[in-house]
């Protein structure tokens, strides 16, 4: 009786090319509006549920990273795929007058709205001029 050893021929050793492919991300389109009290940023992140969104401030950078999650039925074969990568990533450098501690955000229907107020010292103030 011959003993048959089965090796997993489907095992794929990650090559550097695979690592490159994993590193490619989608750049979400954004709208940025500035008003006297701060900046409002809107980003289109379709397919991102609340728990897959990673929004953080690192030093002076605002980093938006998210993962796309869609329900795929078993054994589905794609015939036309315009979205082939499932990660979003975009970073912005925040200038000094923005208060990075007071950033607030809301995610609804795939649209992320981020509000970054300007620091109190940077808000427009009229300076009273005394006539001496």
């Amino acid at each position, binding site marked *: 009786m011959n003993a048959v050893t089965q090796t997993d021929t489907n095992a794929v050793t990650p090559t550097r090319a695979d690592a*490159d492919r994993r590193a490619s991300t989608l750049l979400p389109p954004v709208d940025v509006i*500035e008003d006297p009290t701060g900046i409002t940023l809107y980003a289109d992140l379709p397919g991102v549920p609340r728990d897959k969104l990673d929004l953080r401030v690192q030093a002076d950078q605002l980093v938006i990273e998210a993962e796309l999650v869609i329900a795929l039925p078993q054994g589905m*074969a*794609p015939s036309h795929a315009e979205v082939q990568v499932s990660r979003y990533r975009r970073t912005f450098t925040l200038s000094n007058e923005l208060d990075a501690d007071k950033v607030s955000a809301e995610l609804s229907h795939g*649209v992320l709205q981020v509000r970054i107020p300007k620091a109190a010292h940077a808000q427009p103030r009229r300076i009273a001029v005394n006539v001496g």
Partner: protein
Amino acid sequence: MYPSLFARDVFAELDRLQREMSSLFDLSPGIRGFARGGYPALNVGNTPQSVEIYAFAPGIDPAKVEVALDRGALTLAGERSTATPAASDDQTTLHLNERFAGRFRRVISLPDDVDPAAVSANYRDGVLHISLQRKAAAQPRRIEVQ
């Protein structure tokens, strides 16, 4: 082997670039091509029982989007409005305006075996997922050999 001087192997980069370029052309878009502005992006998949369509359309009102099935073509139409002001007054400045806003319309051709009565759609996290079941008679059946 010598450690690579560059963070990534130059040949792997060229290879990846070539694959990306060819994948752009291999998409074989239908005769109706891509949507203006790329909104909404579409992914279409096939299972033996259904055709699944994913439209990446953030920020739309699901009650107002029109999904119509007519003679083998599915039409997806609607309007996407953003809160972004089009013109800036002296108080606000628009720095970036990359998101699509306005009317959109995409048409997807469907195979003959789709059952027009068995279509369902749901909208979640900005993705409109339309599932079309194939006609039961068209599904593969085993034929017993006596």
